[in-house]
């Protein structure tokens, strides 16, 4: 099995996770910028963080044969400081020029405040202006339905390329409006607080596999990068073929992330080789 982990906070994980991911077939990860667990105070703190995930993390991942890509953003929780947000956003074009940075993320909403919505709009605007991809975080638990609705409202008021926008952390109550609006969506698999592997497979079976990404996020909180592999096992256990699994867990990330030419991993197809002839 070849797997791409499209949303993974490597900075918060040990090398052992890279090693075990490599052993289980993960060939690439993409690391969005996220909340550190406290509100950063200085623009330079963000810039050094972006440097860490765009310059150092690829070298750490490479030791295990894993390609590493990243995104830049000011997290929704930190959007309550609009001056800081603006000061950090000014530097985004420098990072868009880096060889493994794919776009803006994870932006999005937490409590759907006015500052958060304005920050989301500014993030999406700069991404569209520079031809970048966008990864949007939707709120957790009780805030999710309202926050997702607000995300869709903000985006509907902008001139965006919906194929280049990924709305993450969708669940059963939010997936349909996001797919119907033409965006990519992501299922984030957490042990307790977000979607689970079984529920993710239920949604894949109900909505099909187009424009769907599956990830385990995996950060400094209760999380497990191998919920992605659990999901693959559940998917296969229900009778879906290896190629169908590859379509979801490798090729869909290629299709979305590959819209940025820096992500040069191509979709793959499994072939059966019989004797000297190759048959599809």
């Amino acid at each position, binding site marked *: 099995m070849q797997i791409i982990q499209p949303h993974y906070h490597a900075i918060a994980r040990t090398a052992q996770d890279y090693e075990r991911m490599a052993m289980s077939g993960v060939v690439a990860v993409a690391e969005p910028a996220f909340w550190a667990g406290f509100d950063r105070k200085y623009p330079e703190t963000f810039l050094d963080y972006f440097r860490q995930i765009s310059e150092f993390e690829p070298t750490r991942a490479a030791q295990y044969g894993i390609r590493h890509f990243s995104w830049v953003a000011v997290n929704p929780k930190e959007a309550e400081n609009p001056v800081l947000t603006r000061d950090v956003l000014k530097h985004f074009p420098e990072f868009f020029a880096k060889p493994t940075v794919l776009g803006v993320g994870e932006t999005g909403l937490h409590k759907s405040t006015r500052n958060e919505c304005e920050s989301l709009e500014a993030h999406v605007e700069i991404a569209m202006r520079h031809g970048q991809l966008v990864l949007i975080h939707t709120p957790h638990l009780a805030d999710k339905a309202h926050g997702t609705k607000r995300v869709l409202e903000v985006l509907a008021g902008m001139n965006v390329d919906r194929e280049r926008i990924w709305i993450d952390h969708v669940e059963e109550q939010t997936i349909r409006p996001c797919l119907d609006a033409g965006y990519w969506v992501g299922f984030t698999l957490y*042990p*307790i*607080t977000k979607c*689970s592997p*079984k*529920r993710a497979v*239920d949604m894949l*079976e*109900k909505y099909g596999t187009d424009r769907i990404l599956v990830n385990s996020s995996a950060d400094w909180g209760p999380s497990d990068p191998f919920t992605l592999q659990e999901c693959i096992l559940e998917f296969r256990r229900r009778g879906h073929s290896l190629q169908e699994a590859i379509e979801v867990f490798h090729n869909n990330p290629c299709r979305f992330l590959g819209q940025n030419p820096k992500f040069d991993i191509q979709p793959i197809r499994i072939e059966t080789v019989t004797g000297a002839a190759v048959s599809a």
Partner: protein
Amino acid sequence: MLTPSQVVDTYFLESRHQLLEIAAYLDRYDAAVARAGERNGEAAADEKKLAVLRRALEIVAEPKPAAERTVALLELFATV
């Protein structure tokens, strides 16, 4: 030992997760029945396990049960 408030707060998210898994299981069954119906198939031949599960959920939801819920469930599950 935990106070009542600590019990509520400590185990709420975990319990929420477990209930969502059960809800998803029942939705998954309904979806499978719907697919089978489209192919002129039928529901599961024996829905006793589902009936037991639904009775278990009633016991779990009881605010002032006569006996411990876990004991009642274990005795109920012993019938399948």
